[in-house]
């Protein structure tokens, strides 16, 4: 049974002092329904992805679902840290593939800016194994990735300049994305001169703390034919994996094993052998600049250790062999945790339909790659989308 994406929506990411979590959700849901040409009554089940450990609404699924007009239809609440969005899409996908629903909506929403930064860091730092990590050592979420950066730099000679180039590319793209949190281009010097958040990561190596929502409407092939929709982006394959909660139980800090496992599953199922040649567009999980470098390697765009040179080559820029994160990445569009994975679906669908305006890539294969990581490789989802 093929499952297709027939409608997508995404709110403006950023500091959204003007809306509550449910009001924010509806911005994406409304756009997705309009995009699909459906009414809320056409949806059989809703999946609400929200981490929301920073929000005042600790159990947000029902308020979100009610506000969006889906009371009585779900919701299934999903949480997979920063991979919550992809997990929500996967849940919607399986509910259709298992014939439990014909039309499902995956909503990803996060309000992150209602608490102060120190509190936010203390919550993100709990995204491992609290008692053995944060409690004793004050691990922050940036700190987990910074430890990976230190290992990568020591083993492969990756430099802070190379990391900075990931941020420069992200900001250059985000400047052209009206949904992005940051709309200003930056230079390598800006990144290198910014203050350390957690060595070796500096302010501009880190994604911002953002609010945002996104939604994707999925349907069975049969239903899509019945609705008479002929412009569909299909979910060709999904790979998923996880890894240990404790960093000390990992075998290596130069990559994310969960990404490798999820990639192997997704590529095998879709028959992908040469990702650079077979994808027109890739969205990778660049919550920090080092994360994009590791993703290049773990997704097979280059050999392990060569990620720094790949960003320098310009081949992941718009116009390169494999444009990565043309939407500005988590790094500059923003990373409202649960909204991120569904927003990647939004961005890939826009690209594969040729609707990405100034950020449009050349379409040859009509295939896009999605890579969404939860925590520091605690979860990983890789999806292949094809129009």
């Amino acid at each position, binding site marked *: 049974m093929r499952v297709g994406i027939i409608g997508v929506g995404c709110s403006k990411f950023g500091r959204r*002092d003007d809306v509550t979590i449910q009001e924010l959700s509806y911005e994406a849901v409304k756009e997705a329904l309009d995009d699909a040409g459906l009414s809320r009554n056409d949806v059989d089940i809703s999946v609400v992805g929200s981490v929301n450990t920073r929000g*005042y609404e600790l159990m947000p699924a029902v308020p979100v679902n009610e506000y969006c007009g889906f009371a009585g239809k779900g919701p299934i609440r999903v949480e997979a840290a920063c991979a919550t969005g992809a997990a929500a899409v996967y849940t919607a996908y399986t509910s259709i593939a298992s014939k439990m629903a014909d039309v499902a909506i995956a909503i990803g929403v996060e309000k992150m800016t209602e608490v*102060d*930064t*120190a*509190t936010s*860091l*203390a919550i*993100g*730092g709990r995204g491992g*194994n609290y*008692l*053995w*990590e*944060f*409690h*004793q*050592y*004050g*691990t*922050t979420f*940036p*700190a987990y990735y*910074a*430890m*990976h*950066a*230190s*290992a990568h*730099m*020591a*083993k492969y000679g990756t430099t802070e300049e190379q990391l900075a180039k990931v941020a420069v590319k992200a900001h250059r793209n985000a400047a052209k994305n009206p949904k992005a949190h940051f709309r200003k281009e930056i230079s390598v010097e800006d990144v290198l001169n910014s*203050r*350390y*958040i*957690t*060595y*070796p*990561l500096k302010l501009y190596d880190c994604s911002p703390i953002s609010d945002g929502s996104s939604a994707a409407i999925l349907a069975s092939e049969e239903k899509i034919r019945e609705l008479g929709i002929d412009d569909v982006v299909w979910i060709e394959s999904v790979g998923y994996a996880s890894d240990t909660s*404790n*960093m*000390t*139980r*990992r075998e290596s*800090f130069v990559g994310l094993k969960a990404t490798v496992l999820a990639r192997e599953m997704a590529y095998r199922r879709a028959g992908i052998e040469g990702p650079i040649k077979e994808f027109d567009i890739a969205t990778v999980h660049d919550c920090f600049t080092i994360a994009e470098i590791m993703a290049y390697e773990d997704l097979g765009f280059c050999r392990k250790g060569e990620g720094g040179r790949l960003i320098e080559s310009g081949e992941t820029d718009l116009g390169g062999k494999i444009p990565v994160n043309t939407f500005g990445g988590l790094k500059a569009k923003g990373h409202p945790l649960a909204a991120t994975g569904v927003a990647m679906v939004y961005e890939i669908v826009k690209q594969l339909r040729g609707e990405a305006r100034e950020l449009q890539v050349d379409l040859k294969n009509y295939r896009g790659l999605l890579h969404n990581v939860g925590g520091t490789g605690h979860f990983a989802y890789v999806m292949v989308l094809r129009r």
Partner: protein
Amino acid sequence: MFIESRELLMKHKIPVVKTERYWKGLEEGKVYKTVCKNCGEEYYPPIAECLCGGEVEWVEIEGEGVVEAFTTVHTIPAGFEWYGKPYTIAIARFGNVRVMGWAENVKVGDRLRLKTGKDKTGVWKVYFEVV
């Protein structure tokens, strides 16, 4: 316009009955891992039940370790303001296990020894000393 939420403070009582040996060990200057007597699997952090069903024994981690990753945290999370300055977290390999601890002036590849100590908030933890 904003409405301020009612304050919610959470402080949890975390059961450490099954890993009490570890926490008591820190107070004696010892860092324990568990090793399964049946399959030989080594656990750090220690767990009291091996997934193979075998019985575990508590073994002190000794000797020198090698730093595999580290970071110095400059933007301090809530709960660590008391330290008053950046702190460095490192992960070092000691034989078959890796240990997290606080360190000073380390880099990847440095050789370390373990010690334990109590911080200002009364929490016992691992501190590394560069050899």
